[in-house]
């Protein structure tokens, strides 16, 4: 929900107050994601602190802290009287992309390890999911499950979607 002059930046704040990650860092994460996505370009002017606070519904002190941190780390620079601008460096996009990717990997690895998966398994899953093949596989699995269910005498009906071998209608099928 974008208001005022902040429209078009593609910044949408899904802040997680339950997370251990401080809010001001989550705000910076969102700015970085916008850069990685291309919604914000190097050299672009960020919305004002006030606009951002309003967008994110967050304490202006917190936004100020985020801006200060971004300034200190060189992600942005402030020009008196003009605003705060992303570093005008074409390499910034790749740098930020890698950084956010690394964060995602850290979380992924942690979750995989929590679930007890080994490296080979985890890589296998990633490979499977990468070009959407993973999606097709889980669809097939639920089709099979549906077939088995529909063969059980009684009330159970196939509810998992079109079965390729199903040509006619079954009693109770209204919308297929």
């Amino acid at each position, binding site marked *: 929900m974008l208001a005022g002059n902040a429209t078009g930046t593609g910044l949408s704040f899904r802040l997680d107050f339950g997370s*251990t990650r401080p809010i001001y860092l989550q705000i910076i994460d969102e700015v970085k994601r916008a850069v990685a996505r291309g919604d914000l370009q190097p050299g672009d002017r960020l919305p*004002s602190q006030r606009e951002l*606070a309003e967008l994110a*519904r967050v304490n*202006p*002190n917190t936004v*100020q802290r985020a801006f200060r941190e971004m300034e200190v780390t060189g992600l942005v620079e*402030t020009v008196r009287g003009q*605003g705060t601008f992303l570093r005008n460096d074409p390499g910034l996009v790749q740098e930020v992309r890698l950084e956010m990717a690394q964060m995602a990997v850290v979380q992924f690895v942690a979750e995989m390890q929590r679930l007890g998966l080994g490296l080979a398994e985890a890589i296998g899953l990633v490979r499977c999911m990468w070009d959407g093949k993973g999606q097709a596989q889980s669809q097939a699995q639920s089709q099979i499950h549906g077939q088995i269910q529909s063969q059980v005498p009684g009330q159970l009906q196939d509810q998992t979607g079109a079965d390729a071998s199903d040509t006619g209608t079954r009693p109770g099928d209204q919308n297929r």
Partner: protein
Amino acid sequence: MQRAREERKQEQGAQEEVKMKMENTAAGMPAAEAGTPATTAGTANPETIPLVVARDLAKRFGRVDAVNGITVEIPRGQIVGLVGPNGSGKSTFLKLIAGLLRPDRGEILVAGRRPGLATKRLVAYEPEGDCLYDWMTVQQIMEFVAVQVPDWDSDKARSLLSFLNLREQLATRIRNLSNGMRARVKLLITLSRNAPLTLLDEPLSGIDPTSRLRIIQSLVSEFRLGEQTIILSTHEVAETEGIFDRVIFLEKGQIKIDGDAQELRARYGCSIQRIFEEVYA
């Protein structure tokens, strides 16, 4: 408008590091630490003593100890959330700060003075529920308040009128407005004042989600960083927790938990909303 305010501050010889427009600066005041005691070493500079000081504050109604020993210091510049179930003392505490009630025990100071005539100009207080003359139109209410208070800001009133979508309601009588609209009018007149301390008693209670959102956004976008202090009581913790520097949990007239919002999240490992649910389960 910003420039005029800045010049005023410079004239007052403000010592705070904060002296800026939110939009154009890198330096700034660090987020206020919760409960930082006032460093009143030597000269009591009004800029550095805490804005609100309560020491063993108590207020009783008949047999009920509405407030029963509150001790707290609130520095300038914080947005403080006051949360707790009904009857925990939130309204009474706010009224004691506003000077509408006198304490039975203990002490309450606003900018170093007892609440009264001297502090009225420092405090913009918005009570819960219906408090506006319902026969007045929105326009009339605004004009009425504008002459009552010393710090009415017509530019702000104008921009809030638009932001809160009240322009078309200027000629409507308060009694003919929906709850949500009435809540917006209340907020408009409270925020159109440049008072150092803004007290809001359940500004979001019983109104539609759109109005709640607009009110929260107005609070944020109109917040006078470094100059303004807001104390807001609410049950709507999930929607508001992002705006709080500090959260004070009340129960039976006493402070149960008091801390910096971020520190509380880190300490309990969850959102303020979760803490709220656990504490009052």
